[in-house]
Each structure stands twice: as C-alpha cells, then as structure tokens.
C-alpha cells in the first residue's frame, strides 16, 4: 500500500532558486518535497503542487486569478485523490502590499483551505485526509528589489507561525513551524535555498512519521 502526500505551496514548494530568475528551479531531489520522498522511502508517493506567487484565497490583481490557492485546490484534490496527507505551506504571498492583510487574515485563508479539504474529503475511502499546516520561515529584513512589493511584510511574516498554530489548534490539524529548522536565503530574503530545503524536508519527514500510521 502506498501513502500519498500532496504538498500544496508556493514558490518555496516549487523550488524557486533564491535571487535568480523565475525559471530557475532546484531539481526534485534538492526540493523539500523530494527530500521528504527520499527519506520516507518506498511506500510513499509525494506530489508537489508548488506555484510561484500562490496565495491562500486571493485572486492576484496583477499576477492573475490563477494564483488563488483556493480555486485551484479543489480540482487539484480531485485530480490526486485518494490523498493520505495534505501539507499546506502558504502565506508569504498574502503578505504582499497589494493585499494589505494582517497575519490573522492570512491564517483565516489557511483555515478556508482546511474547510474546503474537509468538504471534499479526498482521503482514502472518502474519509478526511490528514492535514498539516506548515508556517513558512519568517522573511529577512532585506528583500532586495522585492522590498516595494512586500513592504511591511517582514514584521507580519514573523507572526504567521503563531497565527497558523492557533488556526491549527482550533481546526484540529497538524502543525509545523518551518522557522524552527530553516531560514530564508539572504539572496532575496524570502526564498529558501538548497540547505534550507533539505532541513525542511528532514524535519517534515519526522513530523509525517510522528503522526502515527497504522500498518497497511
């Protein structure tokens, strides 16, 4: 029996290389999803669904409605069902100046996604899958040329972990704070580099196993 994990995220799940162009992406085995797959080993299938610029629930007025995590999540879940575990790591793009969102509202966006997952019940045999909310690591103060887009986001990004954990407690979901094991790269201040991908993948492998899976 194979267990299937969907990693639903943004550029940091996609594997965007910090400080480089939009087409430059880490190879699968360098990305946290690939690290996770390598560590969990046979019996686990990892599906990466990372889109640069993805928000929790917002149509992006500039980048387009395709960046809205909520509208993409439903067809995505139905495409990949049955899913044993869905890891959601989003929130950074919601902090862009154009959305003007406090950290608590970003957490509300994450909450929406959890509700939507539970409405569809894309787990094995139509059950609810396990859901793990991952708070992205806080942004660094120096965002280079991205400062104007994210202006003011740095402070908010440091509050996401607490707001997400409150949401996870409230909705009874698994939670992990990526900021406890990795940092954003100084190359652009909000993407994670190869070392951070590895640290995150290793930590999440522990978290996934700690959930406690009955033998197949």
């Amino acid at each position: 029996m194979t267990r299937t994990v969907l990693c639903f995220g943004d550029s940091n799940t996609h594997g965007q290389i910090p400080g480089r162009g939009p087409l430059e992406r880490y190879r699968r085995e360098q990305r946290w999803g690939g690290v996770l797959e390598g560590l969990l080993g046979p019996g686990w299938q990892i599906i990466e669904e990372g889109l640069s610029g993805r928000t929790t629930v917002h149509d992006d007025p500039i980048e387009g409605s395709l960046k809205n995590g909520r509208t993409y999540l439903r067809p995505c879940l139905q495409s990949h069902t049955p899913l044993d575990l869905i890891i959601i790591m989003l929130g950074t793009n919601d902090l862009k100046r154009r959305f003007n969102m406090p950290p608590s509202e970003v957490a509300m966006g994450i909450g929406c996604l959890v509700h939507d997952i539970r409405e569809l019940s894309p787990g094995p045999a139509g059950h609810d899958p396990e859901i793990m909310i991952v708070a992205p690591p806080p942004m660094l103060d120096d965002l280079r040329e991205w400062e104007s887009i994210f202006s003011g986001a740095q402070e908010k990004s440091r509050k996401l972990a607490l707001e997400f954990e409150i949401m996870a407690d409230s909705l009874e979901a698994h939670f992990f704070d990526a900021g406890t094991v990795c940092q954003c790269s100084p190359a652009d201040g909000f993407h994670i580099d190869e070392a951070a991908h590895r640290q995150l993948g290793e930590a999440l492998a522990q978290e996934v196993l700690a959930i406690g899976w009955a033998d197949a």
Partner: protein
Amino acid sequence: MPDMRFAPPNPLRIADRASGLNSLSVRSHNERLVLSLLLQNEATTRLEIGEKTGLSAQTISVIVRSLEQEGLVVRGEAQKGRVGPPTTPLMLNSEGAYSVGVSVGYRNTHIVVVDFIGNVQHQRVMPHKTADTFDAPEALALEIHQAIAGLSQSRQTRIAGVGLALPTPPIRSGPDHDVLHRYLEAELGLPVFVQNDITAAAGGESLFGAARQLQDFLFFYLGARLHGRLVLNHQIYNGNSPLSYDVGVLALERALPAGDATAEKLWGQEPSWPPMGAPLAAWQQACAESLVQLTQSLLQFIELKTVVLSSFVPADICAALCTLIRREIPSVNAVVGRTSAAPKAVGAASLPFSSRFMVN
C-alpha cells in the same frame, strides 16, 4: 447569521490557555486520556494513543503539541520498526512536574518529593514522639516547605500539589483529617489531595512502581499490620477498607522477648534486620500464610497473575515472603514493590498527578 466555519479561531494556543502548572486549569477529558496513557506506560506513540483512545491523529497532534509546549511531554528518538515506518516514541518529561507526598503512619511521618515519573528527589522521616500519635501539623508544614525549597526555583513552579496519605481508622491522637487538609492547603498555597494510606500505596505502585503497566494486581502493604488492596483495570477496588491482619511488624515486635533492643530496629528503615532467631522465622511463616490465604481466596473469583508486596521492612525479608507465595501458588508472580523507600508517602505523591492529569 455568519458562517461559523469562518468565525475567528480561539485567540490562544491550547498550550497558552493554562497559565502555568499551578493554575488549577481544567484539563479536557481528551488531554487527560492522553496523559493517563503516558503515565501508565514508559513510552508510547501517537499511533498507540489513537488506537487506545479512539481520538483522531489530528486531535492527538494538537494535544501532544500543547503538552510538549507545557514541558510535560518529550519526544524520543525515532525507532526503526521491524515492519512499517519508524515510530517516534513519546514519554513524560521527568522534570515536567513534581509532587510532594506525606504519609502519617503509626510511628513516623514520611515526606517525599518525586518527579513526574516517580523518582524520589527528597525524603525525610519525622518520628512521632509517641507511637500512634501525631500532633505536629506546624512541624509538618515546615518540613514540606523545606522539601520544596530543595528544588530549583523553576522546578518549584511545577509542583502539582501535595498528597496526604492517612490511615483508616484515624490515628488515635491527632488533628481531624479535614482540619489537617485545610490547614496544609492554606499554609502551603498548594492543592492538597487526601487518600487512605494503603490505597495511596497501591496507587503509587500502580503509577510509579512494580505494577506500572499492570492492569490487574493484588497489592499488599506490610506495615505495623498487613493490608491488602485489589487493583482491577488500573482502578483500586475497596478503597477505604479498614480491615487488616495482625501479622505485621507489630506482631513481630510483640513476639520478641520484652526489652529486646532489636525491637527499635524494626521500625527504622534498616537495610537489614539483626538476627532474631525463632521469633522471626515463626512470624515470617505466619505472615506468608496470611498472604497465601488471602491470595488464594481471591483466586476463586479473579484470575490474578501478579501480587505486589510493598513494605519498609528490609528487601530480603520481602523477597523471602514473595518466594513463599510463589512456592504455594505457582500461577502467581509475587514481586516486591519498587516504592519501598516510603511506599505510602510515594503513593501519596502520586495523588496530585492522578487527580490533575488522569481520567477517573
């Protein structure tokens, strides 16, 4: 009407809702279920917790996370299983909580401080001026203050309470149990939990000692007299029975020639007793016979596998009694208790933990 799915979440993390160990916060039934399993097992996993409680993995995840943040629970190293994925064991943080146990006995009052897994951190004996008389609640409060002061500042804030093990019927001369209870609570500013001393000793073995993980066992306490308790499914049956048998240390003391100096040694927590010849052998035989009879009479009704004998008398004497039981009843494993330092006081120290962290 707003869509309640999108109502604001509870504005505090679960771990933050309890403001420190000493606020007598009401723990949810589910939290107590999880803590009960952790208190009854050396290590467990979230999978086992789910199987035993029926709680969902995500509910357990939230509870365990809050217990980790409170410092009550720690994660062990992931263990590779023979089949299936590795598992991460969970266990109590031994430094997560402390408890004070007090037992008022026939000759002595014992005071212990134990950590969350029952390791004795501090132990004191207050001999009574006269046997069967306890008249020093102020001195007791002072001893408890000193015992607590022996812990570091940060550990002092993690004291779950004081357990008080008192005999039934009450000792002849001493303050009323309720009065003592209220006095200590006011004097110490800590919750005080009172229980019959023998029941407390059985609870101590069940939580910290030889009977940890045992659902069912027959418990004997050998003190001035011999007392028994039956534990079924971790619950102590017949909690306050005053019935006891006159085959204890008091009987041995009577059997010694009048004025024998060894009589004093019987009560003094000695690692071994001096040779006493025939009276000791006869007493040991009588005591073993009582133990065997009591066990056999219960075996008619219940399939018991374990007898735990707890006592302050020297370990070799207890071991010899256990051997005699095993010889007479081979189907039963008789073992010496592990709280022998002060069985009733250690048992008393288990009370704050069971009252505050476990399901009834």
